[in-house]
């Protein structure tokens, strides 16, 4: 945050008591978002936060902006209305893995497909928290919960693959506890014009603690975090000993020593074709083992709200502003004399 910033983090805090469990990853995300918004030169009253139902969806109550805490799964649809009715607003959707991928999966993919100018943040904790610990559409196969006592046999979604498959303009992934990276991702998403999707691995320390240990544990994280940097070859590992290659068969992890650095895949976040980004998203099926983090895809394109606005303007230019008296006469009239 620079000295010249118009806002401080506190300008985005509300007087409402934050009610997440102590230690929940949501706190860090809230701080990151508040800090990021304070750093922007955007009027506070232009931000609208829309959420569905779930732990994460309490988020708008804690943001001193305009906000709506709505119906389970429907936040992308409601936010679509906000962003379409008034494209000058900066609209944020806060959702979770249950809210956004299970009950609201349809709205999520259509908001992305339609390229509504939304910043969608999906808090993925791989569990139903608010309803106290049932498996979610991102829980791993075999997960034992109250509703899957013999282990879940559901195949999970990979949220990033889903978003890329829906051709979202912007798709990225980060981890709750890494504030700087989260803010970097928020900033990139905000810059992008069109539908943005950011998956945040969010620790639910009550019902699914340490789900992201491969990526957060001191021992494991360096060998498992694959940082995606636009224009750079994809290299990871404690000593940069691993890299990624992408070809028609998909993306695979290789040893740098074997293939040579110059033969690694150079990440192009701005590629209009989503195929390579999709391949990268398939390197891991969840936060297990080496997993890419960062911006997968960043392809700005005209957003739905502004395109509709342009149609309205074009219609007014071609036909003149609406004339009600003319409209009701447009199907022909006759006169009955007194």
């Amino acid at each position, binding site marked *: 945050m620079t000295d010249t910033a118009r806002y401080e983090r506190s300008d985005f805090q509300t007087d409402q008591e934050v009610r997440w469990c102590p230690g929940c990853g949501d706190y860090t995300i809230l701080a990151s978002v508040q800090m990021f918004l304070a750093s922007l030169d955007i009027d506070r009253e232009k931000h609208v936060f829309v959420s569905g139902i779930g732990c994460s969806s309490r988020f708008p*109550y804690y943001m001193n902006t305009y906000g709506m805490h709505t119906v389970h799964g429907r936040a992308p649809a409601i936010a*679509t209305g906000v962003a379409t009715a008034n494209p000058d607003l900066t609209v944020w959707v806060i959702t979770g893995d249950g809210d956004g991928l299970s009950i609201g999966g349809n709205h999520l993919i259509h908001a992305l497909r339609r390229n509504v100018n939304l910043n969608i943040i999906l808090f993925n904790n791989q569990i139903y928290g608010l309803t106290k610990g049932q498996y979610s559409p991102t829980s791993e196969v075999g997960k034992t919960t109250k509703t899957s006592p013999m282990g879940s046999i559901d195949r999970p979604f990979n949220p990033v693959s889903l978003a890329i498959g829906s051709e979202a303009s912007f798709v990225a992934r980060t981890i709750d506890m890494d504030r700087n990276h989260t803010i970097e991702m928020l900033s990139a998403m905000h810059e992008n014009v069109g539908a943005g999707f950011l998956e945040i691995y969010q620790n639910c320390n009550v019902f699914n603690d340490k789900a992201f240990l491969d990526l957060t544990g001191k021992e494991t994280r360096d060998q498992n975090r694959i940082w995606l940097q636009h224009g750079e070859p994809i290299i990871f590992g404690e000593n940069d000993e691993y890299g990624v290659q992408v070809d028609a068969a998909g993306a695979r992890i290789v040893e740098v020593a074997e293939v040579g650095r110059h033969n690694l895949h150079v990440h192009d976040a701005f590629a209009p074709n989503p195929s390579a980004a999709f391949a990268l998203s398939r390197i891991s099926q969840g936060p297990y083992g080496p997993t890419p983090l960062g911006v997968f895809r960043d392809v700005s394109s005209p957003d739905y709200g502004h395109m509709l606005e342009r149609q309205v303007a074009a219609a007014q230019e071609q036909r003149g502003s609406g004339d009600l008296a003319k409209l009701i006469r447009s199907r*022909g009239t006759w*006169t009955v004399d007194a």
Partner: protein
Amino acid sequence: MSDETLTRERPTPEQIEDVVIRFAGDSGDGMQLAGTQFTASSALFGNDLATLPNFPAEIRAPQGTIGGVSSFQVHIADWDILTPGDSPDCLVAMNPAALKANLHDLVKGGLLIVNTDAFEERNFAKAGYDTNPLEDGSLDAYQVVGAPMEELTKEAVKGSGVTGRAVLRSKNFFALGLMSWIYTRPLDPVVEWITTKFGADSPLTKANESALKAGYNYGITIEALHHTYEIQPAKLPPGEYTNVVGNTATAWGLVAASEKASIPLFLGSYPITPASTILEELARHKNFGVKTLQAEDEIAGIGAAVGAAFTGRLAVTSTSGPGLALKSETLSLALIMELPLIVIDIQRGGPSTGLPTKVEQSDLLFAMYGRHGESPLPIVSTSSPSDAFDSAFEAARIAIKYMTPVILLTDGYIATSSEPWRLPDVDALPDISRPFASIEPGETFLPYLRDETTMSRPWAIPGQPGLEHRIGGLEKDATTGNVSYDPDNHETMTHVRARKIQGIANDIPEVEVYGEGANLLVLGWGSTYGAIRTAVNRVRKAGREVAHVHLRHLNPFPPNLGEVLAGFDTILIPEINTGQLSHLIRAEYLLPTVGYNRVQGLPIKARDIETKIHEILDGEVTE
């Protein structure tokens, strides 16, 4: 064909006051189009009219079968009529199935125009005829006029450039031409429509116009039709009229409301029969600042509308029964958030997919009670195609003034039928705007602080500094609007929400009783208006006393309704359901009612209501 035949002298037409005509054919025969065009030229001629389209749910139901029959009924008159008529005086049957499905409605002695080319062996079987009805004497009670419409159409369109199977598509224009001759309708408006629709140089324009004229000339040529009819322009109240279809009037009413509220219109909707044409109509009017969003489903349709309402737009979602079920959860959200929203339910036959193209009034109790929790909402209903303009406007007025979702009930009959509408002076429509919330520096904004009279909360829209606030589905504190789980507060808020809706009763017109000195009242709502009023008029003309009250507001009821109802010995409630308004009236006023309930997917007939009234007056019916 030469134009010379057209100028031959025609017999002086017999002047008649009104006629009911039904065009019936296979759903691929273009009967809706023929009927609509016949209606349009009658409207421009100045007749009063009412229409009743009736078509199968399938776009192309099995050809030649009863299930595939599509019909369009139009009632034209030189006086002020209110219904599309109970029984046609003239039936056009394009094939045996159309004859079979509709003959029982034709008045005895009525005119029956048949396309003889379709009366062949294989079609009889499909329609369930053992013998040729044209030859077995079963039509002796009617004036039958046969025309080989397919042969003559083929002949007529030769040289137009249209060839092959497409040729026969023009036969509906042949039928229309023939009907135009019989009922002395001008052809010019139809020709004009054809040219605009297909383009001046199109072979289709040539083909359809030729078929139309061939039909007209056939009327001139054949002896069977020396008798023609004419219906003079109706003596309607003076003014400028247009012929309007219900869903169009609904859409225009919303556009008008948006202008008079000085806020842009936003429609979030998902295509569903018979509501889709509202979305289609509004999508065309972007120059009014209208935005339409064809959502991924019904839930997203209302969701987007709720989002738009939050930003200060006149938000609407349109649907039919099954869609209303899907919207129910989000409707409750809009209710507790207290955002203005109009939900249009074009009722159709249910439950489930039911009869998607047919009329029913069976969503009244659903509109009233179909939400979880204690969730009262205002309900406004529409009584005819032209009334749809006013009722949509009224729904918007209530939504904005009281910060509440409003359910607007129309139905499949109103949606697709048409009638002349005396155009309002749009400048004289009331201002229904309401200022958005504002704030002085240093003040705290309380989103649930209510207006003392309306109990309505302020409408604060994103973009305004100092008014940042959060709303949502959780219960709110009655004063601060913050989330509250307090038991007393929830009870207070439950009653506050109910009182706000109940208070609207003071802001709607009292009911007016039509017909004096009666002990019997016919109480109705929605599209039964025309049939009830016609029946009541006929009974009164016959010298007996009966009154009529028609409700626009179904929740809350008008303030004087209880008092009015208490003044009658008997309350008859005709409805296209099994007694839903009866249920509400009994519950609200503890008064007995007599129902007249039909659920056939068709409008109730004036004649049947008339019979029922006579039965009650004769003492044959007790509650």
